[in-house]
């Protein structure tokens, strides 16, 4: 049954060498946090978790530091027997980067301890208090006859919660964690329970809704225990034998899972939740191996069970991205081949633009993940790595122990569930910034990658590795030139529109200087991004009739490259002065000072509000961060 994914904490590798690991840690020296976290990041049995808690006591007794674990003093108040939970919160916390010191209230004394200033809980200086109430100790624990009575019972139960919170607030500075109540599985009527206000299940439902509202307070946090219990099955959560024997409010074999949920919430409250997901490709995002099976051979969607399974992984990744988790790819593949499905496969949900860093090569994945971390400027402990291959998982666990690597079952249909069940990305708040974070990281990653060794703008531009193709107008470029001329409005000095016929005429006019500029850089091919036309005006003068540029390449110095080309051609043609014209429109305000910035001198105002500027063609202009290709010339040379 796939509730085992939860109850066995199936995303954690089985605890091998547990005894040896503990022994080595006990007899070691120095800070114990890193190794402790590694041991705790396994699916440990209840006795193993208890042994680990005892080991932590010993290590602290030895006076050793717990770095890099964050110490948290956690108060635990509630109903029923919580001793086992309290104990294993200590060991489970290590898995989530925390060293939890759990202070327990006396049995059944939740309210008293909260309200009393000198209770153990309030004197202990807890940073967080977990209030683990159980429905059996609240006024809503038995069915009542009327809706009015039901509402009263629910309100009384909420009042108990509120007075606990008020008491804790008055006597301590602790943040509070409240849990929703797991209803009992036994029906009173059956389905009608949901419609009869006085049924216990109904009252618990009302209570839980109101509790969620209480958690809108910034100092109060929600643990949705009701949902966890539902996920494993209420009939599994509530064990009558254990309640009767020892007032255990939940079945003991669920204690490790319950503790993990508490700890992941505490982790999120302390900034330990993960923020990025690195995805393998073959047999993870699609069935099969793209390099061998090709686009037609990989299994993705299309009514095929395996294809649908892998699609569900993509769906989950996209959902995570929409809430601010950054996606990256690390695949052992040829880069072009790996990108093909993203670009071409009709069933792919993930596109290249969803992936902030895409690394497909033949290097080991640990190195790749390290590089991804650097590019995203995130610590390794922010990462989760999803890979179907146990060998790859083992390598990354070995060399990058800070990265979370979930175990995956054999059946890909359960990959998405296993990843989600691990709760790596637990959050306690969702902001507008989160919504747009993935995009922000994408843009940043590209900039950071290029700025790695840049110390100033020029270095940055040089690192862009820009390659410009400069040509006069020709038949091949005609359509694109016409399009740019027709559609450019912002970086357009004169907004002179040409018909395609006029563009063709310009191709053949020997007295006109025409220029089309294409630009490639490290990030890709930008295509044609600038167009210029100069015509003879007064003697030994060229007028710049058209100068436009795509806003995509602002701030790169393309203007200087174009000006340099104009000046060289002008000198060559015996021209002494370049005259620039700026015709202001509603849309081109950004280029009002364009000529001034390039060193032109203001000449005069025109009749229609335009301005005229001039520059001597003796002026030298440098654009050193472009490498320039003149295809016309290289073709001519090739023809020789």
């Amino acid at each position, binding site marked *: 049954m796939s509730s085992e994914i939860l109850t066995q904490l199936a995303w954690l590798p089985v605890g091998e060498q547990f005894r040896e690991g503990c022994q080595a840690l006990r007899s070691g020296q120095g800070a114990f946090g890193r190794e402790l976290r590694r041991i705790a990041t396994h699916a440990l049995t209840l006795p193993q978790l208890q042994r680990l808690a005892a080991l932590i006591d010993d290590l602290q007794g030895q006076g050793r530091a717990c770095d890099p674990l964050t110490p948290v003093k956690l108060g635990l108040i509630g109903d029923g027997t919580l001793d*086992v939970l309290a104990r294993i919160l200590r060991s489970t916390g290590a898995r989530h980067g925390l060293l939890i010191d759990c202070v327990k209230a006396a049995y059944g004394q939740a309210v008293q301890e909260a309200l009393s200033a000198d209770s153990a809980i309030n004197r202990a200086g807890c940073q967080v208090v977990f209030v683990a109430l159980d429905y059996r100790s609240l006024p809503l624990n038995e069915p009542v006859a009327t809706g009015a009575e039901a509402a009263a019972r629910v309100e009384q139960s909420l009042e108990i919660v509120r007075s606990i919170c008020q008491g804790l607030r008055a006597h301590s500075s602790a943040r509070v964690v409240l849990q929703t109540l797991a209803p009992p599985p036994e029906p009173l009527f059956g389905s009608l329970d949901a419609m009869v206000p006085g049924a216990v299940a109904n009252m618990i439902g009302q209570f839980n809704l109101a509790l969620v509202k209480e958690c809108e307070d910034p100092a109060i946090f929600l643990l949705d225990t009701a949902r966890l219990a539902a996920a494993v099955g209420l009939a599994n959560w509530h064990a009558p*034998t254990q309640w009767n024997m020892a007032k255990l409010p939940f079945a*003991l074999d669920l204690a490790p899972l319950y503790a993990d949920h508490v700890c992941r919430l505490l982790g999120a409250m302390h900034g330990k939740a993960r923020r990025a997901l690195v995805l393998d490709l073959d047999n993870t995002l699609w069935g099969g191996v793209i390099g061998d099976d090709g686009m037609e051979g990989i299994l993705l969607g299309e009514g095929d069970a395996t294809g649908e399974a892998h699609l569900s992984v993509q769906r989950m990744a996209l959902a995570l991205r929409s809430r601010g988790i950054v996606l990256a790819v690390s695949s052992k593949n040829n880069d072009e081949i790996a990108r093909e499905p993203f670009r071409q496969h009709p069933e792919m949900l993930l596109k290249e633009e969803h992936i902030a860093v895409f690394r497909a090569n033949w290097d080991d994945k640990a190195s790749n993940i390290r590089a991804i971390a650097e590019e995203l400027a995130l610590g390794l402990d922010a990462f989760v790595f999803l890979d179907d291959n146990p060998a790859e998982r083992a390598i990354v666990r070995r060399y990058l122990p800070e990265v979370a690597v979930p175990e995956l079952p054999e059946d890909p249909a359960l990959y998405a569930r296993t990843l989600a069940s691990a709760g790596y990305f637990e959050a306690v708040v969702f902001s507008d910034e989160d919504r747009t974070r993935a995009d922000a990281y994408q843009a940043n990653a590209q900039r950071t990658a290029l700025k790695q060794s840049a110390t100033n703008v020029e270095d940055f531009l040089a690192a862009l590795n820009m390659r410009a193709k400069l040509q006069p107008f020709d038949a091949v470029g005609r359509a694109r030139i016409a399009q740019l001329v027709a559609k450019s409005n912002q970086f357009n000095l004169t907004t002179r529109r040409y018909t395609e016929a006029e563009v063709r005429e310009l191709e053949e006019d020997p007295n006109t200087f025409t220029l089309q500029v294409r630009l490639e850089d490290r990030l890709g091919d930008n295509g044609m991004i600038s167009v210029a036309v100069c015509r003879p005006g007064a003697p030994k003068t060229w007028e710049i009739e058209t100068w436009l540029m795509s806003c995509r390449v602002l701030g790169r110095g393309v203007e200087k490259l174009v000006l340099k080309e104009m000046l060289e051609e002008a000198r060559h043609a015996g021209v002494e002065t370049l005259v620039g014209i700026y015709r202001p429109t509603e849309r081109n305000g950004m280029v009002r000072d364009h000529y001034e910035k390039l060193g032109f001198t203001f000449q005069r105002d025109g009749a229609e509000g335009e301005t005229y500027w001039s520059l001597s063609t003796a002026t030298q202009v440098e654009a050193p961060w472009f490498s320039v290709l003149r295809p016309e010339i290289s073709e001519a040379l090739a023809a020789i």
Partner: protein
Amino acid sequence: MSRDEVTSILQVVFRDVFQDDELIIGDDTTAEDVPTWDSLSNIQMVLAVEQAFRIRLTAAQVSGLENVGGLISVVEAKVAAKAA
């Protein structure tokens, strides 16, 4: 399953649950002999025994036991009943 077989499996379970790798159980062993055996670890032990032998023990059956010998007998009988 013979009584000796049940005893040796029970020993493994006891050592694990009561966190004592040196523990040796006999028919006369009671909670008083094991410092870590309290009401809570008792429940853990019962659950672990249930899991190890794939049997069910009721609260009445457990609370009626005087010593480990009694537990061995109950487990022996339950295992035999399953096989029958």
